[in-house]
């Protein structure tokens, strides 16, 4: 797998490069999914970042909380009924104390679900085909194309430079 990319000093020029590559994808016959953007920090207020926004992690977290709470409820009530102990007049399955366990399980469910949803949503772990450049750590933004068509390499490089690339590089992943 190969990648051709440009390095940009700011998010505005990176956005121009992304726009140029999106236009080029139809002209030069490659999939827009092949466009790759990598940065050392998040950037807000740009189309290439904001288009990734989603509200689904919140819904999943709520679902995880519900599952956690149900698990807590079953753990406390079923075990107290299966292993009854002398309660001195207290209810066999007291809501006050079971509520504390259920509360903690609700939170644990939300935490674990958030972690899993992040890993799946961000495609982690992924040890193959990681595209990176030492310049990213210095604040540059990488915008490029993975496996670009061989016959349009020169044209892509020209468009990347036109968008304001400080450098254009090629890497083998």
């Amino acid at each position, binding site marked *: 797998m190969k990648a051709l990319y440009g390095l940009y000093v*700011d*998010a505005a020029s990176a956005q121009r490069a992304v726009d140029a590559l999106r236009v080029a994808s139809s002209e030069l016959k490659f999939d827009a999914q092949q466009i*790759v*953007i*990598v*940065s*050392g*920090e*998040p*950037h807000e207020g740009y189309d*290439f*970042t904001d*288009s*990734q*926004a*989603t509200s689904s*992690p*919140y819904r999943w*977290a709520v679902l995880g909380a519900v599952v956690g709470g149900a698990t807590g409820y079953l*753990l*406390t009530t079923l*075990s*107290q009924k299966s*292993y009854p*102990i002398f*309660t001195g007049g*207290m209810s066999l399955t*007291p809501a006050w*104390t*079971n509520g*504390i*366990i259920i*509360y*903690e*399980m609700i*939170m*644990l469910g*939300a*935490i*674990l679900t*958030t*972690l899993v*949803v*992040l*890993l799946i*949503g*961000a*495609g*982690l*772990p*992924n*040890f193959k085909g*990681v*595209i*990176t450049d*030492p310049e*990213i*750590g*210095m*604040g540059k933004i990488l915008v490029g194309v993975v496996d670009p068509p061989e016959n349009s390499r020169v044209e892509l490089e020209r468009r990347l430079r036109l968008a304001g690339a400080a450098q254009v590089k090629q890497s083998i992943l």
Partner: protein
Amino acid sequence: MQTTAEQIEQDLLRPLFHSSAKYWIAVALATSLLLAGVAAFAYQLYNGIGVWGINSPVFWAFDITNFVFWIGISHAGTLISAILRLTNATWRRPITRCAEAITVFSVLIGAIIPLCHIGRPWLAFWMIPYPNQRHIWPNFRSPLAWDFFAISTYLTGSTTFLYLPTIPDFAAVRDAATGFRKKIYRVLSLGWQGTPRQWQRLETAMHIMAVVIVPVAVSVHTIVSWDFAMTPVPMWHSSIFGPYFVTGAIFSGIAALILAMALLRKLLHLEEYLRPIHFENLGKLLLTMSLLWFYFTFAERLTAWYGNSPPEMAVFWESIRKQFAPLFWTMVVCNFIIPVPILAIKRLRTITGTAIASATVVVGMWLERFLIVVPALEHKFLPYSWGTYRPTWVEDTLMASSFGMMALLYLLFSKFVPMISIWEMKVGLQAHGGVPVVAAADGPVLAE
């Protein structure tokens, strides 16, 4: 001095590749303390828990004091970090990871202490609820079972809260490292690239975690307080113990955070990042908590005094005037008399000033935990069951080694993980229009 993304990366990765002699001396000291504790624990395992000073009626003493103290210290990190994230306080950026690491390690230490107390830690699995032939089952009505769930949830949440924003920094170390170290960080970074999708998912996850972790943190120390409040022991059976403990926990946590930051600043040469403004802001928080702590301490004792119940008054006078009076008044001096003037006067609210105030608070809050546990257990309702407690060298050593363990874990962590979030500092640069900013002596430039 120009502050650029490149400089941030170089400065914050430097401690991972180069360490000063001072750093290694600190590691050696912390290791010595920890090894002393390991030796004391081995002695305890061989001879039995009778080598401790605990007896009837003082079944809990140094161990539960240390347990409550370290769980309290854990409130420094995750809670403060989460609140500052939710309120979008930009000055939080250099301090969040220092704080979150304190949480994970202190909860870990806090969780180890009950294992020491049970005497035969190899049978600890008996506490895990699973069908068994011994007919042993956890009693979910017991606050100790609540502790298990609360601390497990808090440890899981805090570790996740620490790890998630560290993933991009692990990737930064991966890209800067070579050889075997590169392979380790490749695994730790999970193959992070830094695509817009990954950043978006990470920030959303951090927001959810910040929302979830605040009530978890509050519940943990409330439940720790219920270990006492649910027990019919004089001065324990109190409805304000929950908020009283949470306040004390945040108070001691902030103090520990300030001390850790002052230490890291010198050992890792992070003077340009951990600036006076951070200590001043945390100093203000510490001042607020000191006043709140005094309010709760006064309210708790006023209620007991006004009620004039003989069993409670026995404990009350033991603390205020008799056997424990020197410890009680030392606690008041450490938690209120010394820190309040230092933190209230702007001229004194310097890095040194806040560090001194924090050191006294850490001592004072350990004493507070001790004074909640021991005087009450020595003087229960029936005078014929009263007793005395004196700690032995084994308990003293285990207590000291818990501090050594904390210091060692923290120092080693700083050798493997950037103690200030690199990517969050770069986001701070963007707040200045994406252009390099000039560090000024009088302003919080890198504080962003």
